């Protein structure tokens, strides 16, 4: 009897996984069946239009690439520096412990709150306006906790014998970190960065909040340009009642998912190469 109960329970637990995977399958199928036929070169090269069948995602795709590149450029140095401090310098200090607690809490603050911060601080107070810069700065703050956490993990995998060897040869702490530890941790750092950016690339709410316009018929040409991004274009199309625009939304989702998948593929490739190289 209890054996049958056990089996039943095991099946029920397994069933939850099956249901979750079936839902994921339904999601992918739904989007493919709605949007795949709409994809074309013209869709990638056209800009937004009032006519659904002439509209495209060129401006939004370019906006996404601009914003994400700049987000990475801002989040990488600051995130790595913060991680080095926490992992290599301040391991036992009370300030470091407080900062750690803070980062853990920041990682769970809703993204729309970052949008309000970006609106109040970058857009208004610093006068950046609704520019690529303001968007990227907001997303960089959002991505920082992830970059810091993954960089710390990468730094931790570097064996202490490497550091000791370097000290024994007379190198200072910073020389050791810069010349020995960082290069060894680099693949792990980059993997973490790409994963953080693949999160940021799908973020919609914070960019809507800072006022990234939903109808921008041009691609950005500098970091001070106004911009829109793929998720905002998707949201805009989804919100319209006409079915043709919903089809456009599905096609734009496919473009976004392909972008996401290729970023994840790069991350897996980097991690894989790293593991095959082995540790010294």
């Amino acid at each position, binding site marked *: 009897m*209890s*054996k049958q*109960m*056990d089996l039943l329970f*095991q099946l029920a*637990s*397994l069933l*939850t996984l099956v249901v*979750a*995977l079936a839902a*994921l399958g*339904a*999601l992918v199928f*739904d*989007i493919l069946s709605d949007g795949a036929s709409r994809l074309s070169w013209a869709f990638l090269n056209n800009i937004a239009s009032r006519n659904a069948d002439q509209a495209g995602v060129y401006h939004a795709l370019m906006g996404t690439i601009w914003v994400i590149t700049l987000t990475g450029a801002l989040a990488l*140095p*600051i995130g790595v*520096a*913060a991680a080095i*401090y*926490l992992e290599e*310098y*301040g391991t036992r200090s009370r*300030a470091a412990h407080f*900062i750690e607690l*803070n980062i853990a*809490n*920041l990682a*769970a*603050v*809703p*993204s729309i*709150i*970052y*949008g*309000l*911060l970006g*609106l*109040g601080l970058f857009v208004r107070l610093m006068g950046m306006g609704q520019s690529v810069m303001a968007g990227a700065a907001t997303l960089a703050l959002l991505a*920082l*906790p992830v970059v*810091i956490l993954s960089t710390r993990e990468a730094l931790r995998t570097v064996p202490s014998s490497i550091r000791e060897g370097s000290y024994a040869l007379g190198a200072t702490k*910073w020389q050791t970190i810069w010349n020995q530890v960082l290069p060894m941790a680099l693949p792990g750092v980059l993997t973490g960065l790409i994963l953080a950016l*693949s*999160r940021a690339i*799908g*973020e*919609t*709410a914070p960019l*809507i*909040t*800072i006022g990234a316009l939903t109808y921008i018929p041009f691609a950005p040409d500098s970091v001070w340009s106004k911009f829109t991004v793929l*998720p905002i274009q*998707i*949201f805009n199309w*989804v919100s319209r009642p006409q079915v043709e625009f919903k089809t456009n939304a*599905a096609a734009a989702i496919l473009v*976004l*998912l392909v972008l*996401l998948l290729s970023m994840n593929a790069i991350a897996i490739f980097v991690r894989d190469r790293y593991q095959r190289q082995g540790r010294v």
Partner: protein
Amino acid sequence: MSTRTLEWIIERLLFLCAALSVLTTAGIIAVLAFETYEFLHEVPVLEFLTGTEWTPLFANQRFGVLPLVVGTMLVSSIAMVVALPMGLLAAIYLSEYAPSGFRRIIKPVLEILAGVPTVVYGYFALTFVTPLLQQFLPSLSGFNALSPGLVMGLMILPLVSSLSEDAMRAVPRGLREGSYALGATRMQTALKVVVPAAFSGITAAFILAVSRAIGETMIVAIAAGQQPRLTANPFVPIETMTAYIVQVSLGDTPQGTIEYRTIFAVGMLLFLMTFGLNLVSTWLRQRFREEYA
């Protein structure tokens, strides 16, 4: 410059970067507090927190935030009804039953589920789940709390299952073996030994999931509607706190008006709710780590 000074300068610079996270928190609180303070000059705090009508964008302005809070709670509760039991069962399966090969395949797939952008889930809720549900529930409106709630539950499930699984795997083997030695089945061991032993870790996961649901924006902005109303009926359009912020941000609300300030006041409330939950969750996880350190 001597090497010594250079090393000192570098350490300070690195510290500044680390301290930026504290500045971010301070910045969030400062921006929200400043505008909320201005807002509360015009609207008494009691009216804001206990009023039952929310119409800042209409001619007859009312600033009772309860409809938005109740809307948020309604969608989050539906999401939790899906995510908590399913996430826990999935975690039990992965931690106690699944062969390691199966685990290695299924965990990345769950990560995909967690990595799908929320705007995509919103599309799924609006164009697939709602029409599907309408076939069984003819009274369901095109915008409602039920469909985004269910989809949000699906989105949060991986968070619950992966954090709960981590907590359960940290339970020492000896406890399980003791239970088997007393003749318990795997189900009895999982439910009466492992889950209670991992309780604080699992609770931390649950709380984090609630906080995630409250702050989730795009699914509800797309599929739940924009009608703040005080109701527990999941079949009609409602509005959540996050969806309201999006709604105002999409329009041209001039800076300095009371309409503009409402989003910061609502944001402040949202921040306080999620930050409180996150603190409890962090505290529980730390306690759990100490138990089996």
